[in-house]
């Protein structure tokens, strides 16, 4: 009847493992989470939940593929679940972490406006493409690992990345030239 739980690390070895899990992955989890939910506080919640899930499931991790890819698959799925839950429960569009208005963008300084344009362009991509861009272009994960982490074909990773990059580059270049 007693359940098998994995609680706070107590031994030195598991304490080190626990700290390494956070040190190695917290930032990249945050980037994936933020790209999906577009809200800083939610992204932090997702980091914490992902670390908890990964820590508890670590003993059962088979070790095939990279640990980074495995952790990011948990992060992406957790972030997508958060987003869907919010869409299901919130009827007020204002409560969803959506884009800023174009009027807001114009009020900002140029540098800030460039980032806001990029944020808008990123928000226009689907969740899968956003995660692919972050995993590849910011964290340098190999295509195959991204495909495994997101459970999609390799071709999907490449095509989504290409389309997403073209769209984002168009926005970034437009900002540079204005």
């Amino acid at each position, binding site marked *: *009847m*007693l*359940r098998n*739980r*994995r*609680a*706070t690390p107590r031994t030195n070895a598991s304490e080190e493992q*626990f*700290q390494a899990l*956070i*040190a190695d992955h*917290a*930032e990249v989890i*945050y*980037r994936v989470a*933020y*790209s999906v939910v577009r809200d*800083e506080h939610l992204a*932090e919640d997702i*980091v*914490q939940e992902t*670390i*908890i*899930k*990964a*820590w508890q*499931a670590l003993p*059962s*991790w088979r070790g095939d593929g990279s640990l980074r890819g*495995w952790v990011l*698959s*948990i992060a992406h*799925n*957790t972030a*997508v679940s958060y987003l869907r839950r919010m869409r299901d429960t919130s009827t007020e569009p204002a409560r969803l972490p959506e884009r800023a208005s174009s009027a807001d963008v114009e009020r900002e300084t140029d540098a800030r406006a*460039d*980032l806001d344009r*990029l*944020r808008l362009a*990123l928000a226009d991509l*689907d969740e*899968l493409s956003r995660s692919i*861009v*972050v995993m590849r*272009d*910011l964290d340098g994960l190999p295509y195959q690992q991204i495909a495994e982490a*997101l*459970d*999609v*074909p390799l*071709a*999907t990773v*490449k*095509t*989504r990345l*290409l389309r997403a*990059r073209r769209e984002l*580059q168009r926005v*970034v*270049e437009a900002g540079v030239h204005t």
Partner: protein
Amino acid sequence: MNTERPPFDGDCDRDRDFERDFDADLESELAATDNVLHRSLAQLLAPPADLESRTQDHVANSLMSRSLLGTGADLLTVGWQTLRLMWSEPEPEPDADETEVTR
């Protein structure tokens, strides 16, 4: 752990077809790096400076709370089962006559 794997909205079959036509030009476009885009994305998605320490504190506390709650639930379960055993009437011993009949 893929317990939460939601279906994606994408047209993966169409992407698979696309791969057959994925020529060398596209591969080289894919391999090219765009530093401006990289810098902008890194800036946009930069985590807070104290993310690591905050995550560590919060996750450790959360695991501890879950562990304590779980232990409490286990103790309650064990206590309840013990009380049930104590309160339940003992099974009657088959008496000698019944033993004779069944024999």
